[in-house]
């Protein structure tokens, strides 16, 4: 964290400016309201035991039922082992790839980085179906081909397994790590690495002993975000784990919520574990970062010379390309292929290929409206989120505001609520808070919901980049006569831009893909593409659902390309 004493005279946010203090207090109150209201309602209702229509009764039975339900301990163990396994693998690979893309002379960096962004964009259901097509133990195409070679007696791959679930998740998990770490790695002054090389350290030694410790805030944030999301994941587990009795925490919560009537008390009780894990991780993060300084961008000049890999340049490129192809290209090809098939995965039926899926999806009268709503909600959530999250992050990192630690902690809390429960919590919040009633049912309520959902990610990513920026940059601007707003606009904002763009883009993607929140808050008029996709999937029209999924992916890729053109590749010029 920044040393408060360095902000004493130059900081615009020191205590003598009462109106700044008022604004920061209002910001704290707003965040507290948006975050604590849904969480509080969920906790409160977890003690409400009565059946629908019956007089209200409170008690602990829901909590008791949650933790003594059969299979819950095994589900908990499965959840943690799956999450930790894939996070460790993805972290090691993600750090290495981010370093290669941001700090070395590996060729085709931009294209490779885009591949990894794409892997994060792919929707889970069609991606999983694609991997089933390849790796089903009995009928997977890859298994059949390998068995056909005559070298093996048993199919080597089984997608319906622990490692099958890890594999399918890896693409998105590595993707998000590369997305988040690469901008942070770019903000590293190369002179630090050069100094390490001068004293005899190798490239890998420099990575391990210089780069990674300096990148710790970003790495920790990425790890925590990844771990929490892994703990809450359930779509892939539902498809691959349930048939073989491999349950995870979230499939248990999902089951409880789909009971008739929904069992919110035990579901909420189970999700309290996420809150405990989140609190522990955040505490660890704050303890580790503590009073250390992670400034890598100062006013003393900045070097961007890449590390030369020499003879390892092309082998490294091949390795990254292989990972990109495996985690991105293959599922994308399968996804697109599925849109042209009468029955996904069935190549031996008469006339397996068709344009009908596209024809019917594109001629659906709600398509244009859904597309417009998706863009509007995504843009709104992205832009509002960026402004809101950057304000929060700035106050947490750069101010002396007494409530900044609470603000930081509150910004994590939306991720303590699993996605399948957050939709209900937000529904309760918006219906029971009169201020929201005038906009209930409109796309604006969906924008607010998406902003709340993506708050942890947005705040923490911007925060990790702000920690890299030395205070001398702002001080220099002050000395030259720049006010706070001028300094923010001309000095801080350009340095934050890559992170802001990533946050806006991820906000856009979340809004485009979200189902659990939209289904409870959306109306016929505010229908999104994700709801249209759900419509097709629920009606067993999987192929048409993949057409909508491809449209969502194209939309998101277009947004990514536009943001990259606008400045996603902006890095600090030496």
């Amino acid at each position, binding site marked *: 964290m920044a040393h408060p004493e360095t902000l004493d005279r130059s900081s615009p946010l020191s205590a003598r400016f009462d109106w700044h203090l008022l604004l920061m207090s209002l910001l704290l109150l707003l965040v507290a309201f948006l975050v604590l209201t849904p969480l509080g309602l969920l906790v409160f209702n977890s003690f409400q035991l009565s059946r*629908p229509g019956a007089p209200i009764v409170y008690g602990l039975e829901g909590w008791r039922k949650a933790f003594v339900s059969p299979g819950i301990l095994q589900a908990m163990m499965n959840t943690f082992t799956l999450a930790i396994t894939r996070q460790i693998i993805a972290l090691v690979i993600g750090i290495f790839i981010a370093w290669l893309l941001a700090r070395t002379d590996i060729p085709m960096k931009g294209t490779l980085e885009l591949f990894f962004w794409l892997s994060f964009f792919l929707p889970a259901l069609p991606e999983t179906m694609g991997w089933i097509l390849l790796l089903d133990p*009995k*009928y997977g195409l890859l298994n059949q081909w390998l068995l056909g070679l005559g070298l093996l007696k048993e199919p080597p791959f089984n997608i319906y397994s622990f490692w099958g679930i890890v594999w399918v998740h890896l693409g998105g998990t590595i993707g998000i790590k590369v997305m988040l770490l690469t901008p942070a790695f770019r903000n590293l002054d190369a002179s630090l690495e050069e100094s390490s090389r001068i004293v005899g350290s190798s490239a890998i030694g420099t990575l391990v002993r210089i780069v990674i410790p300096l990148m710790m805030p970003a790495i920790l944030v990425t790890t925590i975000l990844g771990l929490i999301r892994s703990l809450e994941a359930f779509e892939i587990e539902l498809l691959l784990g349930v048939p073989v009795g491999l349950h995870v925490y979230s499939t248990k919560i999902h089951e409880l919520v789909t009971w008739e009537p929904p069992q919110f008390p035990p579901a909420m009780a189970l999700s309290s574990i996420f809150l405990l894990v989140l609190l522990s991780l955040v505490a660890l993060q704050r303890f580790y970062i503590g009073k250390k300084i992670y400034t890598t961008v100062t006013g003393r000049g900045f070097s961007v010379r890449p590390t030369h890999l020499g003879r390892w340049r092309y082998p490294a490129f091949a390795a990254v390309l292989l990972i990109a192809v495996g985690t991105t290209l293959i599922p994308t090809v399968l996804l697109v292929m599925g849109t042209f098939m009468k029955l996904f995965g069935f190549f031996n039926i008469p006339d397996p290929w068709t344009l009908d899926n596209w024809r019917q999806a594109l001629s659906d009268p709600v398509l244009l409206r859904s597309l417009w709503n998706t863009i509007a909600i995504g843009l709104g959530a992205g832009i509002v989120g960026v402004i809101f999250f950057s304000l929060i992050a700035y106050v947490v990192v750069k101010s002396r505001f007494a409530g900044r630690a609470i603000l930081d902690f509150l910004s994590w809390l939306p991720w303590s609520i699993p996605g399948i429960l957050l939709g209900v919590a937000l529904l309760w919040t918006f219906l029971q808070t009169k201020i929201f009633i005038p906009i209930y049912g409109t796309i604006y309520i969906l924008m607010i919901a998406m902003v709340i959902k993506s708050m942890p990610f947005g705040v923490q990513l911007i925060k990790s980049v702000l920690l890299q920026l030395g205070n001398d940059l702002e001080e220099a601007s002050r000395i030259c006569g720049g006010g706070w707003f001028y300094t923010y606009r001309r000095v801080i904002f350009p340095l934050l831009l890559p992170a802001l763009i990533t946050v806006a883009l991820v906000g856009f993607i979340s809004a485009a893909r979200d189902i659990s929140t939209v289904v409870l808050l959306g109306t016929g008029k505010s229908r999104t593409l994700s709801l249209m996709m759900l419509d097709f999937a629920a*009606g067993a029209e999987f192929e048409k659902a993949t057409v909508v999924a491809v449209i969502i992916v194209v939309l998101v890729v277009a947004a990514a390309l536009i943001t990259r053109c606008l400045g996603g590749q902006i890095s600090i010029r030496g």
Partner: protein
Amino acid sequence: MAEKGIIKKILPFFLLAVLGSETDPALGQATKPAWQTEWNRVLEAGKKEGRVVAAIPPSPELRKGLEETFTKRFGIVLESVPARGGAVIRRIVEESKAGVRYFDLHIGGTESIVKGLLPENVLEPVEPWLILPEVREAKNWWGGHIWIDNAKHFIYGFSAYQTASLWYNSDLVKAEEVRSFDDLLDARWKGKIGLSDPRTPGSGASIWAYMMLIKGEEYLKRLAGQKLFLARDLRLLAENLAKGRVSIALGIGYSESLPFIKAALPLSAFPTPKEGLYTTGGYGHLTIIKNAPHPNAGKVFVNWLLGKEAQEIFSKAMGAPTRRLDVDTKWSKEFGVLAAKDGLTLEQFYRMENQSEERIYKVRDPAALLARKLFD
């Protein structure tokens, strides 16, 4: 001369009749039945309201069919919200409690309605909304008017059928190998039976509850011992059956099997087992939300929904044959769906159903509890 005399005698009466009908509106309108007057009033008021909001089952074909046809016919916008029962029911209840009026009516399966909407006192009786004789008169419906709730006011069932819930891969199994539910306990089917997860509401829960009704708990325990392949995604279950990963599947239905049947894949429905199969209305149940924001437009929609045109759309889109006697439903047999009016007696329908309020609490609930005990 005599003719002139007759005309003179008749003319006053003639004039009286014409003038009387011109000057007294009641006389002029007496030829119109009361329902017509009410319908005209409702239609005009509905057009002023401009739209009706209905929660419907998730089906793009249904959504398109209903929205386009209704709006074209009446000039009133149908804003449909497709969603699975549980999610939308929760929303309807919470909105009602908060005084937010958005939904006019809900069409869906009975379990979520009976357990989610009925006890919360958010429903209005359906009958006052039925205006047109073709809809209101019981003689137009097989079995008359069928109500799901015990009070027989709030949940109207407009579909009734028996769906083939036992399917097999005809490359691996012969139809005659399973003639009874008892045959499923044969050791050769161990690890080869797929089941739509009965722990969550849906067709899997329906077949599971029916088996509990006719065969009892012990049977289900033995069936669970067959290492069943449980799937929550019905499309995936149908796919696994088509690929031969499982040889028999319980709980898939019309929507899931249709694409595979059309692609000439070896999916077939077993003939009805000797114990019979459960009867149901599927998603074909109508409820009216209390204090509907567009009551007149809603009435127009309800009367159209329960009429011939909309019932044809619904039956075809959902594979849920209607009870309307003037709608052809024989086509559904090809896809393993037997319309109740094409092959069952009313007694058979009631005996084999597990979707009414009573059966939900007495049969489905205990069956779901047992499923959780066995599979958790």
